[in-house]
């Protein structure tokens, strides 16, 4: 395992709130094992806006106290086995959400605002179980018109994977703008990339538009095929067979441990 991944993982301390991206946006699977070896637990994961393999593996490794998410699943490979077991056993706390509520919370943080209001949610059991959300009547309306207030989500650290970065610390995220939203909202952002280029991504307007400036990025490390077994847009496809192997193995705690041990040399 490259030392810089391990060094990046050591930024994560017990009890931190960590933002992780949806499976198709650029998941830094390369960081999963360093995070597990780093061992900082009691983590509060924020899935932007849903979670998958990485979330399931961190839960399986016993590092997670709370999951704030709109869903956790392995997509075509079915349910997330360690997440489902942890829910059943009551070993993790849940903040079930809906996708736009997570986006709204990050957007509030991005603006330095205490909250954002969103439509929907009224009458759902999601709202009933969220004591951190509030309902007010639209103050600009003629009376009535309830809206839900979502407090700012301010993660300590955001972690994701992207195709490229430059040696000035800028990261190209293309049209996956949720990666920028995560970085804007978080105190610290750790990024793994397929490759680091010499040219400045901001000096060409074509790449500048899809670039997250270094201002928001704390650390970058090279990790070729760092999203595997997830795919990375424009680079490589998802290895669905591998995710299915995981789904099948991780149905038991022993199977999960066996899978993780067997992949020790493969991952990162």
């Amino acid at each position: 395992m490259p030392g810089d991944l391990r060094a990046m993982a050591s930024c994560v301390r017990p009890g931190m709130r960590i933002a992780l991206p949806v499976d198709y946006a650029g998941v830094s699977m390369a960081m999963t094992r360093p995070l597990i070896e780093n061992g900082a637990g009691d983590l509060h994961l924020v899935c932007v806006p849903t979670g998958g393999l990485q979330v399931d593996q961190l839960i399986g490794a016993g590092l997670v106290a709370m999951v704030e998410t709109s869903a956790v699943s392995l997509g075509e490979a079915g349910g997330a086995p360690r997440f489902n077991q942890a829910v059943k056993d009551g070993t993790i706390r849940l903040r079930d959400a809906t996708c736009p509520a997570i986006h709204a919370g990050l957007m509030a943080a991005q603006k330095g605002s205490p909250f954002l209001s969103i439509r929907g949610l009224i009458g759902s059991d999601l709202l009933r179980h969220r004591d951190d959300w509030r309902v007010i009547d639209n103050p600009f309306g003629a009376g009535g018109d309830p809206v839900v207030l979502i407090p700012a989500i301010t993660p300590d650290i955001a972690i994701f994977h992207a195709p490229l970065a430059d040696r000035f610390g800028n990261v190209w995220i293309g049209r996956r703008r949720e990666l920028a939203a995560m970085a804007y909202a978080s105190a610290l952002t750790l990024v793994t990339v397929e490759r680091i280029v010499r040219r400045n991504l901001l000096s060409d307007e074509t790449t500048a538009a899809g670039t997250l400036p270094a201002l928001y990025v704390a650390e970058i490390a090279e990790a070729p095929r760092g999203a595997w077994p997830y795919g990375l847009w424009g680079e490589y496809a998802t290895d669905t067979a591998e995710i299915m192997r995981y789904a099948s193995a991780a149905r038991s705690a022993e199977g999960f441990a066996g899978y993780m041990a067997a992949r020790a040399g493969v991952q990162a």
Partner: protein
Amino acid sequence: MILAPLPREVLIWTIARLLEGVRHVAVGAASPMPAAGSMLRRALDESRTELRLSILGSVANNFFTNGSTELFDCAGQGRLDAFFLGGGQIDGEANVNLVGVGGYPQSRVRWPGSFGSAYLYFTVPRVILFREEHTPRVMVEKVDFISAPGTSPAGVHRPGGPAALLTSKALFRFDRDRPGFTLESLHPGCGLADLLAATGFAFQHDDDPPVTPAPDGATLALLRGRVLDELEETYPAFAADWRRDLAAAQPAA
């Protein structure tokens, strides 16, 4: 001779019929049938109008450039006309449960979660509930957990909501005022007694309900040609399975 329509082709054609007049439809990541129905609608409409189709997680069928929030922003503004929702449980008032059964938060059976349902159900005018499994454990009298409610009290901003429920057995339309489902048609091979036994909630129906229409020859040719080819990019496993079914149904020469 054209091979008779397969059950899945009747469902896909029904989805395309439900999308008539729609200009922008979005489909969730793991939804090959809704995607196929939308692709068929797009092909049928193309001489008159351009149907925009967004498939979450797809590259070829995704024109969004503002990340995964853009779909919801679109819907919030009324720029999305139709969407599909499934559910581990669906009840007679069109409440959907995507979270789990047997208590919350410590559920005995946990499903992935609510995704965007608690928002899109409110904001998208034509939400089509699509769930192939039609059994009493899915079609329940009352859901264990409301991910998104079927209706809202007066005064709640709600331009959107359920329009229809399509399953492997039947097509229902939803009446928001009553509220409740009315049987529109039974799929070929399904009887009313069978449907009543498989459904945990009460619904209105005729004594002799019509049969869900099957696609005609030209539509079938479009489905098995262009739509199947288009679908292959995003749903290769589903497309291969469909081709296998077609080959198996081919009468021996």
